[in-house]
């Protein structure tokens, strides 16, 4: 009782440090969530600027703006920043903000570790971005850093890349531990596992994936480090190693990583679609089991990234079929979302628009993934722009759209203000059109034979590349509207009630808007 009184007094008296110290020393899940989200927005624009350089160079055939080595650095760092700097921290930020609110916890279970896991991230990316300005340049071997390109033949700054990835990995693992411990220990009385909101469920499973595979990534980069600097031969055939083993280890991390970036997105869409359909989520249980099945299957499909490396036929068949199997639980999810909307009382607020776009466009990305899973077809598609189109459909119109939807959905709760709806709708429509102009023609150039990661291309690809680049510039510029909306919403606007969206369900809508600095000091009762 004393304890809860004490906590109560804290929530009213704000005796935290002010200014920069508030953010440096904070152990508050909402502050750290905001830090993560702000950081990932910054990274989205840095990575986006690199994408603009790539698309500007590819606007016309020939080399106009950058030399091929710098181009490779751009593709590499664009990938690393978007995966580790934009998408993953954004989801961790949303987890920080929303999981305690959704399960009725006062904060994350390990608040100091929470602080640390965020504050090492800026250092990781400062190292990575700093290497771009050093002699020899940044990493130029693709975000997949295949050996021996990243070992024997890489530049002297590879160690910086390795350390930077190590730090990102540590940060992710700590974030994941925090999520698991919070969910298992701090749920409000009465909230059983099967009563948890979908977003919490997907994050719980994602956190297990993170803990399982981030150490594998750390191992991979460490082997790259010792191969390059200490004379080991993990990936060097001359010393008895095997360059293909690198790819096995990397993709054992890399494929679950794909689901790390999409499972929380599933959780977000499963939260938003019922809210604006004014119905309960269709098939909640099947949704949970589908998520768990995807997570399990994600560990036994890794070699579908490596069909052209010369695997035995039996392995090719196994990985083909196991990959196709993933489409079953994913199909269950898509079906459930559509079934949730079926005969619902639909309204099309901005978060719902982005969620519906997610469902349609992610499905396109999923279907092209199914095409890529077919081994003999993959011989043709592998390492072409078709693959680029595929993973941008699942990552941009998938993960990124869900993050944007989540921000529009919960931002009024964070700030207490409604965003500029008209501007947000313009943002949606511009993004929707430009993103398809950007990525859809990539399917065609890929099928026509344009390999990925090239700075110059054959003349027959010129027209499509110009269209793609124009779509790219338009999509990049449209995101400035997003920043405008976010900044405007944080500065003020029309005040919103506790339950911002009338169909929304969940504990987060029980607390005031904006959410008080400390919430649920006394756990709520779940019936």
């Amino acid at each position, binding site marked *: 009782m004393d304890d809860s009184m004490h906590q109560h007094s804290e929530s009213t008296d704000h005796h935290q440090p002010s200014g920069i110290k508030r953010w440096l020393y904070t152990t508050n899940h909402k502050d750290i969530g905001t830090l993560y989200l702000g950081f990932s927005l910054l990274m989205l624009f840095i990575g986006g600027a690199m994408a603009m350089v790539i698309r500007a160079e590819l606007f016309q055939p020939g080399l106009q703006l950058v030399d091929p080595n710098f181009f490779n650095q751009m593709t590499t760092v664009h990938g690393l920043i978007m995966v580790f700097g934009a998408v993953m921290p954004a989801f961790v930020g949303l987890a920080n903000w929303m999981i305690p609110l959704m399960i009725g916890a006062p904060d994350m279970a390990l608040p100091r570790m929470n602080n640390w896991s965020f504050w090492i991230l800026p250092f990781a990316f400062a190292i990575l971005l700093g290497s771009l300005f050093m002699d020899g340049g940044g990493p130029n071997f693709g975000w997949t850093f*295949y050996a021996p390109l990243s070992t024997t*033949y890489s530049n002297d700054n590879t160690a910086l890349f390795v350390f930077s990835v190590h730090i990102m990995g540590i940060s992710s693992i700590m974030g994941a531990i925090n999520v698991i411990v919070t969910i298992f220990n701090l749920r409000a009385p009465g909230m059983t596992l099967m009563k948890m909101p979908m977003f919490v469920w997907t994050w719980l499973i994602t956190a297990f994936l993170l803990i399982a595979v981030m150490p594998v990534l750390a191992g991979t980069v460490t082997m790259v480090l010792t191969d390059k600097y200490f004379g080991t031969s993990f990936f060097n055939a001359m010393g008895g190693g095997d360059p293909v083993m690198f790819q096995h280890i990397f993709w054992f991390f890399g494929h679950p990583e794909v689901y790390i970036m999409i499972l929380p997105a599933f959780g977000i869409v499963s939260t938003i679609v019922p809210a604006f359909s004014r119905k309960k989520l269709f098939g909640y249980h099947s949704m949970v089991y589908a998520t768990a099945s995807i997570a399990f299957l994600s560990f036994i499909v890794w070699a579908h990234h490596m069909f*052209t490396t010369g695997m035995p036929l039996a392995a090719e068949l196994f990985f083909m079929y196991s990959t196709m199997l993933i489409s079953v639980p994913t199909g269950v999810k898509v079906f459930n979302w559509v079934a949730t909307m079926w005969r619902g009382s639909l309204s099309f607020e901005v978060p719902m628009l982005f969620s519906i776009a997610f469902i349609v466009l992610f499905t396109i990305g999923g279907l092209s993934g199914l095409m890529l899973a077919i081994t003999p077809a993959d011989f043709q598609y592998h390492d072409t722009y078709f693959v680029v189109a595929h993973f941008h459909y699942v990552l941009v119109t998938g993960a990124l759209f869900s993050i944007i939807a989540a921000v529009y959905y919960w931002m009024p709760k964070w700030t207490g203000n409604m965003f500029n709806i008209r501007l947000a709708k313009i943002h949606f429509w511009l993004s929707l059109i430009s993103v398809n102009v950007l990525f859809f023609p990539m399917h065609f150039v890929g099928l026509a034979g344009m390999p990925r990661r090239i700075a110059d291309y054959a003349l027959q690809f010129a027209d499509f590349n110009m269209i793609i680049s124009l779509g790219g510039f338009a999509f990049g510029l449209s995101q400035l509207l997003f920043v405008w909306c976010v900044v405007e919403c944080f500065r003020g606007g029309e005040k919103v009630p506790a339950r911002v969206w009338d169909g929304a369900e969940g504990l987060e809508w029980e607390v005031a808007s904006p959410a008080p600095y400390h919430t649920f000091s006394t756990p709520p009762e779940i019936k």
Partner: protein
Amino acid sequence: MRFLFTSDDVIHAWWIPDFAVKKDAVPGFINEAWTNVNVEGIYRGQCAELCGKSHGFMPIVADVRSPEEFELWLIEQKELVAQQAQQEAALKDVSFTMDELMTLGKDVYTANCSVCHQPGGQGLPGLFPSIKDSPIATGDVQEHIDIVVNGKAGSAMQAFAKQLSSKQLAAVITYERNAWGLNTGDLVQPKDVQTDDSSDTKPTIETPPTEPNLDSAKVIEDPLVDLDKTKLMELGEQAYTEHCAMCHQASGLGLPGAFPVLKDSPVINGPIDKHIDIVLNGKEMTAMQGYKGKLSATTIAAIVTYERNAWGRSGEVIQASEVNVQIKGAE
């Protein structure tokens, strides 16, 4: 068709979209793939696995021909290699002046070395070492030759033995030792580079100049087997269509005012050795170029045979050995 892939440096991927075959070339391992190509022709593709800064500039060309044509092509290639070997052997006793070597060396350097080491020889700090400030360019000549010819293991510096002739190698090394104000005054001659080759025991670094010395007799003899007239005519018609008909026309009538008539011309009705000579060496001050070194003796023999027997004329059969005598005679 069966393909075997491997790589000298990083992982590449061999891909020709029309074949729907893509396979990684992994250093230290050999990969295999196969395909059936039904239509002869030139097929193009490019490297599909990120392999460094020049990944976008790695074209792949497959020239698909029927088994019969492939046999002929093989014979022709062997012969060209043998001719090249003869030229290389001849270079052993020739010395070039500094000016000659420097001029050629500059071209070779620009084409092969300057992408990494930069036109000014200063390299790119952190990526590609400078030649200008390097002890290699000013130190021991043998070491310099060794690094250019054999490459440097574990770095992006590849071996150029297979890619450049001994004259080009000599020129580029001379250039590197005397350009950019280095002026060491060292002159490297083709024979210096060749000696280095033959003393090298590594089997991978065999170059055409050393290899055929033992087998040259065999290699040269093979293609000079006499062919019968029908075969020569068939081969000749093909080669004529490919190389001569553009100007002289398929009918042998030429284009009045621009390209002379062959049919019933003094060349065709005159002595054979003059005919062979004009095909081999061309005709000065005209558009007629020499085909020595471009076509094999067999092909030239076939063309001459064809020209003397086509268009209603019935003439002599010329064999490759006769052409070869004239090639040798000129040297």
